[in-house]
């Protein structure tokens, strides 16, 4: 029993830490631009294709990951530059709709280029083989997922809390007009924020595809939804909120997986949404955030 619950916690934290990063990437753009970027999952999908394509020309795994990181960051910056920056002064609801458009467009291009069928994304076996530590199974990937999340969190926190650029980001997030009056360039802040959220997406994509092993054009929905659920659980507008939300979601799923019978497991997402509805009713600002709307 002890071991079983420890196993649930380890599994929950490792997947939860990935959700935490996903949610953080989403929340970061939200804080500065005031809208939930529904095209965020598209970054993950395209990152998956970047790994698959680089692998198909025979590149070693490390190189596929390197190419994926660069590609994802560039794609994220391009998204910010061409899809969102032109509307920087538009109401956030406009940006929210734009993000739906971007997600659909990126999906259409993926279908056109790669077809509907899932493609294999390679994972070195050493990453997913689990070892038993005192009866608890744990894989290198799970440890990496946790470790990378901690590193990204600490780095992001330092950047935002301790650097002058972090001051500019926080100022632009709180009051973009006033920040501009102090000499901040909101378009530049936007691009940097998209770059950072691209780095976060790349780290997520690495863990994500190592775990599931395939990518298809419609695979953007799951990460976007997970991130969305996590930010609703934890609350938007802080660093703490999405992290807590992501970990909670991971633990919740892991607990469900250990209780539910196989045929009920198909409804895991339904349960997660049930939880979201419950949280929205009981605590609309999330466990640790402020009250916000999809487009503030």
């Amino acid at each position: 029993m002890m071991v079983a619950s420890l196993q649930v916690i380890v599994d929950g934290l490792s997947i939860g830490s990935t959700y935490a990063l996903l949610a953080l990437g989403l929340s970061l753009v939200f804080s500065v631009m005031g809208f939930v970027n529904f095209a965020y999952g598209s970054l993950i999908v395209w990152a998956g294709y970047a790994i698959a394509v680089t692998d198909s020309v025979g590149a070693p795994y490390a190189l596929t990951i390197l190419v994926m990181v660069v590609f994802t960051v560039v794609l994220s910056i391009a998204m910010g530059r061409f899809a969102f920056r032109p509307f920087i002064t538009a109401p956030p609801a406009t940006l929210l709709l734009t993000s739906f458009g971007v997600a659909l467009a990126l999906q259409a291009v993926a279908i056109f280029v790669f077809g509907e069928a899932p493609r294999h994304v390679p994972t070195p076996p050493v990453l997913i083989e689990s070892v038993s530590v005192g009866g608890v199974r744990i894989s290198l990937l799970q440890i990496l997922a946790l470790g990378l999340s901690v590193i990204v969190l600490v780095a992001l926190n330092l950047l935002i809390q301790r650097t002058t650029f972090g001051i500019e980001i926080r100022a632009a997030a709180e009051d973009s007009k006033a920040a501009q009056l102090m000499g901040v360039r909101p378009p530049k802040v936007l691009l940097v924020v998209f770059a950072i959220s691209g780095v976060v997406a790349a780290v997520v994509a690495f863990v994500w595809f190592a775990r599931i092993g395939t990518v298809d054009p419609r695979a953007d929905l799951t990460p976007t939804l997970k991130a969305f659920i996590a930010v609703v659980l934890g609350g938007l507008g802080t660093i703490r909120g999405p992290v807590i939300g992501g970990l909670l979601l991971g633990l919740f799923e892991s607990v469900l997986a250990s209780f539910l019978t196989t045929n009920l497991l198909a409804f895991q997402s339904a349960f997660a949404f049930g939880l979201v509805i419950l949280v929205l009713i009981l605590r609309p600002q999330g466990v640790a955030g402020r009250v916000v709307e999809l487009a503030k």
Partner: protein
Amino acid sequence: MIELRGAATGYGAIPVFENMSFAVGKGSAMAIAGPNGAGKTTLLLLMAGMLPLWRGAMHVAGNDVSALGAEERIGVGVVLCPEGRRIFSTLTVEENLQLGATTIRRSLHRSGVRRAINDGLEQVYSMFPILRERRHGSGGALSGGQQQMLAIGRALMSRPAVLLLDEPSLGLAPLIVDEVYAHLEELKRSGLTIVVVEEAASRVMSFADTALVLRNGRVILQGDAKEVSEHLDLAKAYVGGGAG
């Protein structure tokens, strides 16, 4: 020092004013007064580069700055303390001040930046000792008067030549208003050019050298602050209201 010639601007396609002209000499202060919706804030936003100049020109120290945006206006020495102060509550007091030095950070070489910012902080803290005491606290936790001091300090961090203030006395107790103006006097004596917008004319007129009274985007009085102020009093006495 700062001069507007035939300036026009507005929001969308709707003009707020069509033909605004004035000049403020170096080290002197101009008051802009007028009722709600007269266009006072619009005028300051235009000078700060937040609104485009539709027609006419703006000069600072003889240079045409008409085409410059907000950030570059700070670069040529024009900075605005906005209406409502707009202190960042997610930043500490010192971070608010640091933010004021954003353009300095970009314009100077690395080694010069730290010195310039430390000098700036020192200058602001010696002018407003309360800000030094509260420097690690949130900007949002300050009182209204302290926030106004912080807004002025933050603007000073960019080493301005022209300071624009939008209703600095708004919501402050009379004693605090006097304190704010005492500091503005001090800044003016040090050579800073100052443009102050106030809805209530009384306090600002005794501080300013020249004055402008707006109504519906038109200049209805312009000239020596003392004379403008007397005109306003007269108008009040006769009409029981008036532009001030």
